[in-house]
């Protein structure tokens, strides 16, 4: 039981009902967002039917479901990374840069390392360096936050823009493949990439991601460290009273979050892409962020949402073209999910449907105005 759980147990009739309520609250925003995005498509003269049929066709049918599952690997790891920070109420929004840093470590060092050492060892080294690169990159926002309380949203975002520039410089500079004219890294040979799950074309990054999500879930809900994160997230002041060092907590959570997101980048390169082009930025974090809110910051609960988005993104790229749209339209759908999520949350809490997406501390701030005076005083 995490801290937010405990709060909501009272007054509900059993786990099944809680699950049903949580399910409704998580699925309704997604459905509403899909309906409204369909209306938007109609408004700008594209066919929503073509689009959604295309998503089904290119995202699931045939062997396309395997591509969707492969895409889940980086998405899910990014989700776990975001959850680590968000649980501690640290808004790490520098995910795009952190992801690219991890990716460039893999695509830049990969071609060199795979030549000088066994593939297994090289993979391990790449993963470690990628995680460290991500963690180090988060130090500036973390230290500024811990020492001076500087808003981490802004600092992490600015650092992300710098990381994008650094990555591009690396790809066009030291990591450039001299054999091609386009600025890109050398291609890592197929047999050095992460192996497939036997019988499929899904690389084992998918398994790593699922394991990571389950382990993270366990750490959050069953260990003292998880409880500490929740206490810290609910109130840094209270955390200080129970003896948590908030400076280290900020730095540690930021490093973990950023390191995991960089790890996702490395896995994506070693599992899927095998090389990296300059100016390539898949912006997975933008899409994953609403999903972790919907999953109420629970890694295992994030799995179905990430799976849903993986299908949408895999099928959506081709489907968008077919429906006469641009891929950017996926951003609109994601934004709409965010909007409807807050609205559903609002209506749901007014009707006391069940538990909230938001951790207790944030929920208090956000929803306080709408409690009746009597509840407010008792809270």
């Amino acid at each position: 039981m995490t801290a937010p759980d405990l709060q909501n147990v009272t007054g509900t009739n059993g786990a099944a009902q809680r699950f049903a309520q949580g399910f409704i609250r998580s699925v309704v925003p997604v459905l509403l967002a899909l309906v409204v995005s369909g209306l938007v498509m109609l408004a700008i003269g594209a066919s929503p039917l073509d689009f959604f049929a295309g998503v089904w066709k290119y995202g699931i049918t045939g062997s396309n479901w395997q591509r969707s599952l492969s895409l889940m690997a980086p998405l899910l790891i990014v989700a776990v990374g975001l959850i680590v920070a968000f649980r501690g109420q640290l808004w790490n929004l520098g995910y795009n840069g952190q992801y690219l840093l991890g990716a460039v470590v893999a695509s830049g060092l990969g071609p060199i390392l795979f030549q000088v050492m066994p593939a297994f060892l090289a993979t391990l080294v790449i993963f470690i360096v990628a995680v460290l690169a991500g963690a180090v990159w988060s130090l500036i926002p973390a230290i500024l936050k811990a020492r001076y309380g500087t808003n981490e949203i802004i600092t992490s975002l600015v650092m992300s823009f710098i990381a994008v520039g650094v990555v591009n410089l690396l790809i066009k500079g030291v990591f450039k493949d001299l054999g091609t004219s386009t600025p890109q890294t050398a291609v890592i040979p197929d047999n050095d990439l992460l192996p497939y799950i036997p019988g499929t074309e899904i690389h084992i990054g998918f398994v790593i991601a699922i394991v990571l999500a389950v382990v993270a879930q366990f750490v959050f809900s069953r260990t003292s460290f998880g409880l500490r994160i929740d206490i810290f997230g609910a109130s840094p002041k209270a955390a200080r009273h129970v003896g948590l060092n908030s400076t280290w907590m900020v730095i540690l959570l930021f490093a973990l979050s950023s390191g995991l997101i960089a790890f996702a980048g490395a896995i994506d390169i070693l599992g899927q892409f095998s090389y990296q082009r300059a100016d390539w930025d898949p912006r997975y974090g933008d899409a994953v962020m609403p999903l972790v809110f919907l999953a109420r910051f629970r890694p295992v609960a994030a799995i179905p949402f990430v799976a849903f988005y993986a299908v949408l993104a895999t099928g959506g790229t081709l489907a968008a073209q077919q429906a006469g749209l641009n891929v950017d339209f996926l951003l609109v759908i994601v934004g709409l999910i965010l909007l409807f999520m807050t609205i559903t949350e609002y209506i749901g809490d007014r009707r006391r449907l069940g538990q909230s997406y938001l951790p207790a501390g944030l929920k208090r701030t956000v929803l306080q105005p709408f409690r009746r005076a009597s509840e407010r005083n008792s809270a």
Partner: protein
Amino acid sequence: MSDMLSATFITVFIATVIAQAMPLMLAAVGETIGEQAGILNLGIEGVMLVGAYTAFVVTLTSGSFWIGMLGGIIGGVVANLAMLVLNVWLGLNQIVIGLAVTLIGEGITGVLYLQNYTKSPASLGTQPKLPIPGLVDIPVIGPALFQQSGIFWICILLTLGLAFALARTNWGLSTRSAGQKPSSLDAAGGSVMRTRSIAVVLSGGLAGLGGAYLALLTTATFSPFLTNGLGFIAIVITMLSRGRILVVMITSLVYGLAVAIGPALQVIGFTVPADIIKMLPFLIVIVMLIVFARSSVVPPALGTPYTRGAR
């Protein structure tokens, strides 16, 4: 080195600095008013893009830059309505709504532009200049500063007017108290809801105007993701300026300098990779954040919805 000192070079350089600084300044002024009233608008990036796109489309169809700018303002206000209704009125999470507005703004402008204008990329041409008689004849600085379009002067006057209003009028006092201590504003008979609503509408309009300026005057065209993080820089500048609009103006000029210096170096013979030029403003911003970390103060009630009687 002789190029460096030539009068035309410096003139062009100053004009570039101003052209780059203006959109940021307008957006940051809008963000300042919002933040002073207690609303951290992370959607400003999306609002700017919507403003830029509407301004672009309106200018193309109407043929008038002035109507285009107006379209940009209206686009910005409309895009910011989500913030007004969901955050100020219903009290929902500002961070989530702000990011939603940014994502939707980026997505929808990108989709619409590529749908309507890829086949025939449209350029807007240039806006007639309005030289100030007398001053324009000053060597070097004259043509750079005093040969701007009328829109430039309106924007400057607007900014100065808002700087005065925020610091010296009753409206400014109400706005600032809505961010500092909303309960005092309430106790003094003001309405926190109304004050914040006005601030959000103004902030949306100014961000839209900033986007419009960027599209119509700075780049003279629109492209998807045109702002490229400018909205987030506006938020940083707002935080560093601590609510003083004159400081916002100066910091925006520093940003303009950072953007203009890359191409200028290229003219005098240094080749600087485009990535460094793109990165430079962000590097300067992060250095400023580190150096002035202690003084990046935000209003105490920033981010918290207000309700009467709540503790």
